[in-house]
């Protein structure tokens, strides 16, 4: 299982700050599609994904033990 961290609006939409997903070997793109279609987290479309605290590409793979975070558009500063 892979722990998916959620923040800001996404956290409120999902009603939780983390999801457990059985997605070993998935690409980032597949993960995003699953979150949009299965969990109705539409803001994932505009979000970045971080694997182990570094921004990832759509083609990168996620594996068990990775810390995966969905990063909606940031608004710090």
């Amino acid at each position, binding site marked *: 299982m892979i722990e998916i961290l959620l923040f800001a609006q996404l956290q409120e939409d999902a009603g939780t700050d983390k999801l457990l997903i059985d997605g070993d070997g998935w690409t980032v793109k597949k993960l995003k599609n699953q979150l949009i279609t299965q969990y109705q987290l539409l*803001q994932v479309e505009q979000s970045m994904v*971080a694997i182990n605290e570094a921004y990832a590409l759509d083609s990168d793979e996620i594996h068990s033990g990775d810390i995966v975070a969905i990063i909606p558009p940031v608004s710090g*500063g």
Partner: protein
Amino acid sequence: MNEKLFEVVEKPISVQEMIKKVERREAGAITTFIGTVREFTKGKRTIYLEYQAYIPMAEKMLAKIGEEVRRNWPHTEIAISHRIGKLDISESAVVIVVSSPHRKAAYQANEYAIERIKEMVPIWKKERWEDGEEWVGNQLENISYPTGKPEIKEGINND
């Protein structure tokens, strides 16, 4: 004394302590940028802001911005603190300090750092108004149409 140069904090930020982190004998200039909570945004009154961060990654990204600054402006030193949690109007959300032998690099590096923070550091703010609240950066907010549809501005050539 706290010597962490790049951090996300929950307590108020002391600008004086930030300055101490970059003070040194070679410096001829120290610039400070303080990002504060603004009361009115586009005519709408904010009651308070709430910041959230993905703390370990945010601190890594702040440190990465620090590396970029030192690479682009050699001989500068930089420290950045970003506060999270509930902030009232006029409180400091972010403080950036840069020291440099000469002022131009200190000004430029400081501006570069705040622009990069707004692009890539995983920190989010929620605006609390008299009649509601919303996470900023939410695309629904960014593309909301007050009249219910996109307005075509006259006089702008759209080709």
